[in-house]
């Protein structure tokens, strides 16, 4: 054989083999991309609506059926108010607590757990008792949590330096110097957890507006988390990865953008204690916070108007007129209301109120981060060395946040099919660019992104996956940037209008967590009660 032809044939063989290998991989994985009704939602921005075809009268209209809106409605209902309408764009109420279900289990489309509640949150722990999460009486010295809802062991694992380790704080293969910095950081967080300001309040509380205004802590809101770490001399790349992971996980915001105050709040605000659980424990369900949302919804079904896009709210002398586009009937309708709660994000509120000033303020100060959440239906996956499949499974240095096993709280033996919920905040570029790119990406492209990421830890994933469904959250949550918490913008935007129109949303709370939404709704409902009783 001649040398040249010999080398050619080697090259040929290599090409052929990789071609065959790639053919082998090109199994089409089923599923689809589900948006959070981006198309209908954008009608608000792009479409001119005709005049309403019908008008009804109601005491209270709540716009937005996320956790804030549901919490507000629940409170009003319990106060005896029955003349309520809740309008929501989606087919199901629930907002970021949305969930789905298949023959294997329920699974979350958004938030999937809540930490053990802080014991001072009376209304919230009452709610937890009502839905059977707390099994002891209110009189018990410490609440007892339902064992089936406390996250089972093994809870978390991290794939780092070629194998899985227990827990998410980097340890395996981490040099001693880095470990020392991680410990320093955790110690600092522990002292922040216990810290109180000059005003006697907790330095970091939930809802965060209950936190101390002591300048010693407030000044942390003027720099980013990364800057704060740098100031403290905490430069370990392992530590920085961990902190960045946490801020992306909870806020969809990288640590070099997020306010240091909020970043620390994440670590220092959890103080709950139960007879069988501690502040580091979490409560979770197969369908995630959809389970809690279902309990909020329990008595509210008669008030729901789904697939209703609110287009405009006008304030007339003694009432509000709420126009909405009924997607099912494709008609514009009107409600005359005495009181209204806008439980939607501010960038939507500005449009609905046709309030140019508000739109401008929001545009200047607020950013909403886009997210991708995928539910993966899969057969058994091969594993790398280390702890077995856990509830939360994270890959060090991955652009994703890893995945959560929705079947983790299942008590059955021999589970071979699972739903894994894969989370990825889209933080590489600006939200606008990421949102645009996300909406253009095809199902196959998303699947490839996911498979490429997870193949590192599950070699057989291409063959094991049965279906992948992808949800794009264009505006999942407001980014808590520096100045957001202790500046004036939230107060300005949250102020009620003419004692008739009130706001409730976690972007005004500054932190997109279940408790904030719960209390946003509660306090808006209380305002409504005050003014309703005055008018009745």
């Amino acid at each position, binding site marked *: 054989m001649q040398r040249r032809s*010999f080398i050619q044939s080697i090259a040929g063989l290599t090409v052929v083999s990789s071609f065959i290998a790639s053919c082998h991989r090109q199994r089409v994985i089923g599923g689809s991309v589900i948006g959070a009704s981006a198309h209908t939602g954008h009608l608000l921005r792009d479409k001119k609506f005709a005049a309403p075809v019908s008008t009804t009268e109601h005491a209270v209209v709540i716009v937005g059926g996320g956790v804030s809106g549901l919490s507000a409605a629940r409170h009003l209902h319990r106060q005896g108010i029955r003349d309520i309408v809740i309008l929501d764009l989606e087919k199901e109420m629930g907002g970021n607590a949305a969930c789905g279900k298949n023959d294997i289990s329920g699974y979350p489309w958004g938030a999937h757990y809540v930490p053990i509640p802080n014991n001072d949150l009376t209304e919230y722990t009452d709610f937890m008792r009502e839905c059977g999460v707390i099994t002891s009486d209110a009189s018990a010295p410490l609440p007892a949590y339902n064992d089936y809802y406390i996250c089972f062991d093994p809870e978390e694992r991290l794939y780092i330096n070629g194998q899985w380790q227990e827990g998410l704080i980097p340890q395996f293969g981490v040099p001693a110097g880095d470990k020392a910095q991680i410990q320093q950081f955790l110690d600092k967080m522990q002292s922040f957890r216990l810290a109180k300001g000059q005003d006697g309040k907790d330095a970091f509380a939930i809802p965060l507006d209950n936190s101390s205004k002591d300048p010693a802590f407030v000044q942390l809101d003027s720099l980013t988390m990364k800057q704060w770490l740098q100031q403290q001399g905490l430069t370990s790349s392992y530590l920085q990865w961990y902190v960045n992971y946490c801020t992306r996980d909870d806020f969809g915001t990288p640590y070099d953008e997020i306010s240091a105050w909020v970043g620390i709040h994440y670590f220092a605000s959890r103080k709950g204690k139960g007879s069988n659980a501690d502040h580091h424990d979490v409560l979770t369900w197969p369908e995630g916070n959809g389970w809690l949302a279902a309990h909020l919804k329990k008595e509210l079904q008669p008030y729901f108007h789904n697939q209703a896009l609110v287009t405009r709210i006008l304030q007339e002398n003694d009432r509000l007129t709420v126009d909405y586009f009924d997607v099912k009937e494709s008609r514009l309708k009107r409600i005359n209301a005495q009181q209204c709660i806008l439980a939607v994000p501010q960038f939507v509120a500005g449009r609905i109120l046709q309030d140019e000033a508000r739109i401008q303020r929001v545009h200047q100060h607020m950013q909403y981060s886009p997210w991708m959440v995928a539910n993966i239906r899969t057969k058994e996956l091969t594993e790398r060395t280390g702890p*077995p499949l856990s509830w939360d499974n994270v890959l060090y240095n991955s652009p994703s946040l890893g995945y959560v096993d929705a079947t983790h709280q299942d008590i059955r033996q021999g589970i071979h099919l699972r739903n894994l919920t894969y989370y990825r905040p889209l933080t590489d570029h600006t939200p606008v660019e990421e949102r645009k790119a996300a909406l253009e990406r095809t199902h196959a492209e998303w699947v490839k992104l996911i498979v490429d990421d997870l193949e590192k830890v599950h070699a057989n994933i291409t063959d094991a996956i049965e279906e992948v469904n992808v949800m794009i959250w264009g505006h999942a949550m407001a980014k808590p940037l520096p100045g957001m918490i202790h500046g004036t913008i939230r107060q300005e935007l949250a102020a009620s209008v003419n004692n008739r129109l009130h706001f409730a949303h976690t972007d005004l709370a500054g932190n997109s967590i279940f408790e904030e939404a719960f209390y946003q709704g509660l306090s808006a409902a209380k305002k409504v009660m005050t003014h309703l009783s005055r008018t009745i």
Partner: protein
Amino acid sequence: MSKKENGAQWLLLTAVFVIATCGLIYELVAGTLASYLLGDSITQFSTIIGVYLFSMGIGSFLSKYFNNNLLAWFIRIELLVGLVGGFSSALLFIVFPLAASFRIILYTIVLITGVLVGLEIPLLMRILEKKVAFKELVSRVFTFDYIGALLASLIFPLLLVPHLGLIRTSLFFGILNVGVGWYLAHHFSKEIRQVVLLKTAAITLLLAQLVCFVFSESIMSYSETMTYDDNVVYATSTPYQRIVLTKNKHELRLFLNGNLQFSTADEYRYHEALVHPAFSSLNQPEQVLVLGGGDGLAVREILKYPSVKQVTLVDLDPAMTKLFSHQEILVRLNDSSLLNSKVHVHNADAFTWLRSNKILFDAIVVDFPDPSNFSIGKLYSTSFYQLLKRALRPDGIAVIQSTSPYVAPKSFWCVDTTLRSVGLHTIAYHNYVPSFGEWGYIMATPSAPHHWFSHLPSPLKFLNPTTLQLMLTFPEDMKAHQLLDINKLNNQALVKYFEEEWGKYLEH
């Protein structure tokens, strides 16, 4: 240089290429197999690559002692590489059950392959040294060597492992090696003495490897047979477990996922101890629940109490209960207990079944596998025992098989601690079952009964009032000697104790 000389040169360089490819493939096969069978891929791969490269060094060193008939030696080595490398993975699969010597054989194979491959390049360079200028020679030989390595490292993960599997991959390259050896012998037949012997050896090897290549499937299953001491008489994989029955002259053994469940030689010791202490303390038990125990052997003992009206058996795996309801030897073993009209078999998950259960039982027998993983660990948790307590009559008794208090005292007493933590009274006991060793059980009652062991049936082969008293005494080496965690769904303390204790025990 003549045309013929030139041809010979390229043929030998092709051989270098094949050798390099084959050599690396054998190394990758060894690394992969070691990772499969021993775990911890980082350690396996790095030690194997290290040993392999080092052995190549030894080979290169030894090459200076070869002075005559270089071409014949080259071909012999080629055949030897084919022999050792080609059969390496089949051999390793077969010797795996002989756990102690596995590593020795593994590294020996890697060493031999490395030495042989290491010999070849220096030999070849010397064969060609008079035919090609030195700088050309070095350049060509190493080019082919490294290209071969690249090809091997690419096709191994992409093509070979997914499509051929490990045994066939190494055989395939063994065939290639030997094939090249044969062709070289054929081509240079005039220059080599005893060429017929070489060619015969090559053809014999080729045939042997071809046969193995075709029958590699049965090598795999032979390897499983070797995991067990005796003949495998029945083996099946269900969605839940692998069921294997083995037999020798004296006894029949059942394995689930490789763990011994019983041996006919002494299973009566286990099942008498599991059932009778609780049942003999009950006054006329009627309603009985058995969780797990799909072999029907516990039920056989239970049916010795005439007062029993109904036995509900909940076992996850229909294949298990079907096997023990229909297979002749097994039905004889359990006295047709699963076919008894008093016995109702439910193939359901015990935890979910118990969660929705509304019936109260006089006795509950819990015969689950040991808590060796997080999934089974849930069946030993406070949440499960609360359900168990709920399903017991106030004067009822539950008994739980609780692993070996000798091998795993912390695990055993953790089960006891967990049962107590949900408000049950417990009595722990143990006996000796030769197949298992010292074994432990725990009785749990909502309220302490009054007539312990007053109604023992006869005849029994192991239990009597005297052995019963002995079973209740725990010597120091079966105590935990520390405060133990309660096993909960959110800490799985028991699985951690169990892994620690049995892991240490099995290392010996």
